[in-house]
């Protein structure tokens, strides 16, 4: 066992997979330059020393190329782990991901596989509109991509390994405030969850969620940073006798609906928390599936807590309105319980 941050856990996961399988390699901007950063958030720091610059491949600033080369390499026997510095730049490579990576297997009638991993940091951290978006819903909407979103060090390493070994394109979203990156790359307001990570090989299966905190009154589903907002809210509400069950799906596609439905059937109430924009979003999809599958178990309307339908703003007071707070989760839980909101 070791106590690791998410950045460290990802690094160890990549290291072990690269040792295990010579076809695994990393590519991205500033990931292995000597004296450099190890990627935007230090995940690949030091790896080029062990694996050299052929397998920790520093690319030009060319996102279409990064994604496309990863796809081509994956189709022909390699297992690339590609990196964008900020999730927002996934939009630059959208054709490669949505039209190429996601469709190769389908268009080939199941004869071509694309075993690649694409890693992308999301979350609003005072950098303005183009370095802050939570883009999960754009990609969960694309058939052919798997999407994972670890919120703990244990899951980050375990899901990274599963993603590398999976024979499909897997997009891994990571939250900037959860990395625990050190030095100059540590973020203001970071939570930096440090967790126990086994030394021996293990994986976290893609498609399996987890109950982070059991409770009988209300089910709250969150992902990435909002798992922690939900846990914080649950703690506060517990002191008032309200028992919140917090579910972290860990994988967004395929989504562990069984876990969520089973919980909602017990609690009869659901709140879904996300940092994505609200309309046509991820929480909307979870709510729709629950409404379809467990409607008669519900004792209250389903409530979403999301970012408003705006680009992420820069100024901290506006950003505070944008990113769902613990208080907004508390209010939503009180709402589905039919209790008055906290006075403010």
């Amino acid at each position, binding site marked *: 066992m070791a106590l690791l941050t998410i950045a460290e856990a990802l690094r160890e996961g990549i290291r072990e997979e690269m040792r295990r399988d010579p076809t695994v390699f990393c590519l991205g901007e500033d990931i292995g330059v000597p004296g450099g950063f190890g990627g935007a958030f230090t995940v690949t720091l030091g790896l080029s020393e062990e694996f050299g610059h052929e397998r920790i491949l520093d690319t*030009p*600033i060319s996102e279409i190329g990064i994604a496309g080369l990863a796809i081509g390499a994956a189709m022909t026997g390699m297992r690339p782990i590609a990196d964008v510095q900020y999730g927002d730049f996934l939009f630059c490579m959208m054709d490669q991901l949505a039209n190429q990576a996601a469709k190769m297997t389908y268009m080939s009638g199941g004869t071509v596989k694309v075993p690649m991993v694409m890693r992308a940091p999301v979350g609003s951290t005072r950098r303005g509109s183009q370095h802050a978006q939570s883009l999960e819903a754009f990609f969960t909407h694309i058939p052919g991509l798997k999407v994972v979103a670890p919120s703990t060090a244990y899951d980050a390493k375990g899901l990274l390994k599963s993603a590398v070994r999976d024979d499909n394109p897997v997009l891994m979203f990571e939250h900037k405030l959860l990395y625990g990156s050190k030095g100059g790359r540590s973020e203001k307001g970071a939570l930096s969850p440090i967790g126990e990570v086994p030394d021996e090989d293990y994986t976290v299966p893609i498609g399996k969620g987890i109950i982070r905190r059991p409770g009988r009154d209300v089910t709250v589903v969150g992902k990435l940073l909002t798992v922690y907002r939900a846990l914080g809210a649950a703690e506060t509400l517990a002191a008032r006798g309200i028992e919140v069950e917090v579910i972290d799906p860990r994988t967004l596609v395929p989504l562990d609906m069984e876990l969520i439905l089973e919980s909602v059937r017990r609690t009869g109430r659901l709140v879904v928390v996300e940092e994505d924009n609200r309309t046509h979003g991820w929480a909307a999809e979870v709510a729709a599936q629950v409404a379809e599958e467990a409607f008669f178990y519900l004792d209250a309307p389903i409530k979403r807590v999301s970012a408003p339908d705006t680009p992420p703003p820069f100024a901290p007071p506006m950003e505070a309105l944008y990113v769902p707070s613990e208080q907004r989760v508390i209010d939503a839980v009180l709402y589905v319980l039919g209790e008055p909101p906290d006075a403010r």
Partner: protein
Amino acid sequence: MSGTAVVETEIEPLSGEDRWSLYRQMLLIRRFEERCNALFLQGKIPSTLHLYIGQEAVAVGICAALRVDDYLTSTHRPHGHALAKGVSAGPIMAELFAKSNGCCKGKGGSMHVGGMEVGMPPAIAIVGGGAPVAAGMALSSKMRRSGQVTASFFGDGGANEGAVHEAMNMAAIWRLPVLFVCENNLYGASTPVGQTVAVENIADRAAGYGMPGVIVDGNDVLAVRDAALAAVRRARAGEGPTLLECKTYRFCGHSRSDACNYRTRDEEAAWKQRDPLLVLGAVLAAAEDPRFEEMERSVSEEIDAAVAYAEAGPDPLPEDALLHVYWEGE
């Protein structure tokens, strides 16, 4: 016309007065950025910063060839471009302070400063993302026969984005009035240009698009201004775009968190010998000329006023986040 070439139009040299004015603009950018750095360390600026120190001659030299109504697209490193294009220091500083009197009302932050009143839309922090937009502004100028020119700034790193290539090709085939200004400061974040570009000069690529490629000493503001003016005249005459590669160096880290361990202190020292302020200063007057100190004083006052403007500005309200998603009228 294609291939790497020095454009040979007769460019009349600047008067002494105008040279001093370029010096003042460069000094303003330098001292503004230094102040930003200090204010960041005091916790007054809640975001990271990409400082322009060392590259002042590029922004100032290019903008010296532009009219107020000409357009400019900028990057994640936009403070110098904004100041040179004529955005006032106060609203830029206020934006960095995340105040509602900032040039983006606190919505943008350091990477998105701009001012459409001087032809500069919010800086585009998606590397390479500005080039097609610049070509579009130039297309509009051409269609409107307005005679406006657009300067599109990007780095050596940005030169490798697909968007930049599409923009250059379209600008070339339609002879759009654009200056593609590549600020080659030898690094894209930590990555040396030699590792990301296989030709010796980024300007060499111009031949592939059928536009002139011009290489200029990016630390010599007079050389930048002369090259820019030649390209601007060409553009205004309907002869199309130019790729102008300005060889320069950033004196600071890529962003606030960068200790520059991927480059040597010797390399930095060598470039500091060619500080754009020293290069022009040597042309202007002897170092002890009192005008230098006078200028320091007036620049310092201008920045003090900018900081005071920023300090005095109100914080945006949380609900302001909901405004301006769509056009709300003048």
